[in-house]
């Protein structure tokens, strides 16, 4: 009796049967018909004011004494960041967007108590002008296939019982009790899962080589150093469903015979760090981490390490150097990290999304998993659809969907009636894909064929106002700053490329610069030590290939067709359109604009620093940029 009470207090589950009992008791306490208000608490919605919305709900629920009938949940990222803060009211899944604290009393009285829909807060489909009431009907969600991302909008990431209630840790039970490590690896191999961090290496093969590697001590590492600008799906998973990542790691550790794991996460993601930490503590309390997990005799613990803000640390050998407390320099990988990695021990490193796929594969089987996707790329992928796009957000789609479907059907197309120019995939090491390839199916191999890559899943849409030379310059500048400096091709090559690109964007480029860029690109891809340098030239090569005319315009005509490169543009005021409102005159930081009220203003070119302040404030489109 005393022993039972102690166990109950300790929450620890000691066997698979006890975990099932716990799950049933949690489910028994829950009423699925009860109203549940879930507020998206991802970083983007928080930045739009989600915390104030949560506070307002708490106050209103208390004021009306509805604590028993209404449940309030702050969940992880729902993915539709463009319309944040997002609120979903279950069980009907009524979808309200851009909710403000002032709306809360009305939501409670009208929708929760009265059963009425508040039209004002509904999402309006820009294509049809139709108001959409329920979450699954919103076009942004409709075309998605959510598997690893499915629970994000439903569970409270800081409550392990939510995860357990929806079947969490059942894959771990299955793996520990019904499967041998070899069978687990076989299943992962059969599923066709490939590394989701960008490389696309077959996950099962990596696991196998780490299991086969000699050594008593082995490590399991989760790479959450998501450095690609414009990609944030790893953060959202770790924020919104950290237990799925932890569960995947435990299964991986059991399969290769490791007892120690690390999550290496970016310092810039404080919420992800906090949620992962809470998840690990709770898993320890419940006996799902620690010693003798579920009575299987298997021990495993996980530690969180925060990165120091170095992009190169997303590379496996640099990440491990940084875990050892050293600077994040990569090393040549004649010997794979799966054989000699962290402190020279065999180390299994996978991306956040890869780990989150593992419980699904174990639970539903390799056969189910391999039905999703294309011949060479199985499963789903989460992309972050950002840039000049109507529906910015995270989308999970089966491999093989076309770029056009993603950008137009899910992303809602390009805002402000602008024309599509290119989509950049694969982060700084990826490439820009022009319009004629929009019907290409997206998977690891197809994107590589186009001179880009899958990368971590960033997808940046660019409209006609984007200068492709400037984009190439931006990425090279980025990589120059992030190059660790260890190997010469990357350190020097990127510096030279940056000089040339800066020169071109300033109108001082020469025709032969383009050949030099291509030469340097060849040296980088052939001679650099790690993937950062080897792929660094992709943005230059792909823009040179698809948008060479823009380079030529900068060099020959000294013009930036998109009107971005500051040295090559000129601002002027159209006297026909200028109403003389003084707005630009006040905004100009250098006093280059003169004029009187209600009379057309003039701009003194000698004083203009081309900051664009006048262009921004003009209400009459009278400021011309060309």
């Amino acid at each position, binding site marked *: 009796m005393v022993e039972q009470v102690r166990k109950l207090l300790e929450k620890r589950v000691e066997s698979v049967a006890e975990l099932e009992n716990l799950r049933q008791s949690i489910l028994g306490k829950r009423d699925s018909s009860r109203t549940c208000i879930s507020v998206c608490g991802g*970083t*983007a919605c*928080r*930045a*739009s004011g989600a915390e104030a919305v949560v506070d307002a709900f708490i106050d209103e629920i208390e004021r009306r004494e509805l604590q028993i009938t209404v449940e309030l949940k702050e969940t992880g990222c729902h993915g539709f*960041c*463009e319309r*944040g803060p997002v609120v979903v009211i279950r069980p009907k899944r009524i979808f309200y967007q851009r909710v403000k604290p002032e709306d809360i009393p009305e939501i409670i009285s009208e929708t929760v108590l009265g059963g009425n829909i508040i039209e004002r807060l509904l999402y309006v489909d820009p294509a049809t002008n139709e108001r959409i009431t329920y979450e699954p009907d919103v076009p942004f969600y409709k075309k998605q296939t959510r598997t690893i991302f499915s629970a994000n909008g439903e569970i409270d990431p800081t409550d392990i019982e939510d995860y357990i209630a929806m079947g969490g840790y059942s894959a771990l039970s299955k793996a520990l009790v019904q499967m041998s490590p070899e069978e687990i690896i076989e299943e992962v191999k059969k599923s066709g899962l490939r590394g989701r961090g960008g490389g696309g290496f077959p996950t099962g093969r990596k696991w196998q080589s780490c299991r086969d590697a000699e050594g008593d001590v082995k490590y399991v590492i989760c790479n959450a150093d*998501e*450095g*690609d*600008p*414009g*990609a*944030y799906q790893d*953060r*959202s998973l770790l924020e919104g469903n950290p237990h799925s990542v932890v569960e995947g790691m435990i299964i991986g550790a059991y399969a290769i015979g490791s007892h120690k794991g690390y999550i290496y996460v970016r*310092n*810039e*993601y404080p919420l992800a760090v906090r949620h992962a930490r809470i998840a690990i503590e709770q898993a320890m309390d419940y006996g799902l981490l620690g010693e003798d997990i579920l009575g299987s005799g298997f021990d495993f613990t996980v530690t969180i*390490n*925060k*990165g*120091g*803000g*170095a*992009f190169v640390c997303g590379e496996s050998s640099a990440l491990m150097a*940084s*875990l*050892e*407390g*050293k*600077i*994040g320099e990569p090393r040549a990988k004649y010997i794979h990290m799966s054989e000699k990695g962290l402190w020279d021990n065999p180390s299994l490193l996978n991306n956040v999304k890869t780990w989150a796929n593992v419980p699904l594969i174990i639970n539903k089987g390799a056969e189910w998993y391999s039905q999703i996707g294309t011949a060479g790329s199985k499963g789903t992928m989460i992309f*972050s659809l*950002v*840039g*000049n796009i109507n529906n*910015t*957000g995270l989308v999970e789609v089966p491999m093989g969907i076309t770029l056009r479907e993603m950008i137009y059907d899910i992303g809602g197309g390009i805002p402000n009636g602008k024309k599509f120019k290119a989509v*950049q995939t694969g982060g*700084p090491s990826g490439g820009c894909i022009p319009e004629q390839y929009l019907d290409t199916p997206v998977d690891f191999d197809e994107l590589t064929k186009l001179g880009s890559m899958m990368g971590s899943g*960033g997808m*940046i849409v*660019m409209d006609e106002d*984007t200068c492709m030379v400037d*984009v190439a310059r*931006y*990425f090279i500048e*980025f990589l120059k700053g*992030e190059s*660790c400096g260890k190997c010469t091709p990357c350190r020097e090559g990127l510096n030279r490329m940056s000089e040339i690109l800066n020169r071109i964007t300033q109108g001082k480029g020469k025709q032969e610069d383009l050949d030099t860029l291509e030469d340097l690109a060849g040296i980088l891809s052939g001679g650099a030590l790690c993937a950062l340098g080897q792929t660094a030239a992709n943005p230059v090569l792909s823009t040179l290939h698809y948008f060479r005319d823009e380079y030529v315009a900068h060099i020959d005509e000294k013009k930036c067709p998109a009107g971005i490169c500051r040295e090559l543009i000129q601002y002027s005021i159209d006297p026909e359109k200028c109403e003389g409102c003084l707005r630009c005159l006040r*905004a100009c*930081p250098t006093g280059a604009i003169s004029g009187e009220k209600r009379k057309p203003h003039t701009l003194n070119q000698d004083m203009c*620093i081309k*900051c*664009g*302040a006048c262009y*921004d*404030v003009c209400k009459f489109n009278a400021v011309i940029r060309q």
Partner: protein
Amino acid sequence: MELVLDFPKVKAIVESYTEKVDSLIDNYADKKEQLISLLQDVQAEFNYLPRDVLIKISQKLDIPVSQVFSVATFFRAFSLKPRGRHLVTVCLGTACHIRGGQRLVDKLERDYRIKPGETTEDLRFSLETVNCLGCCALGPVAVVDGKYESKMNPDKLDRVLRGYK
């Protein structure tokens, strides 16, 4: 004005500083490999990495000074110089870049005469850039003392900053 040094007070400040430093380092007594985490704790406490603390870390944890400094200067999250009262971080991730993030930096360079990584003379603002904060829907984004300011333009940012003295 005659300068009167209040010795007990100075002594108390020095002691509490030393105590703080010691307790931070002692948390990592047998964990040399967690140098980066220790430096993050030090920076969180003092806003930058004071030189004497780095030397003390080297002595107490028996790590060569050169290694402590190499780590402290390699990662962009660390600053060896004192930072301002308010930290302005401008996101220059790709999505923010194509929506005009650089123009926010240009504005600060012009108005406050600071480049990324620098601090104004009056220690009012430090300016940093970051490669992506992962809230691309809200770009261009600037963060002032941890508060996210979304859909910024140079003019809006200026109005926001006026609230920070």
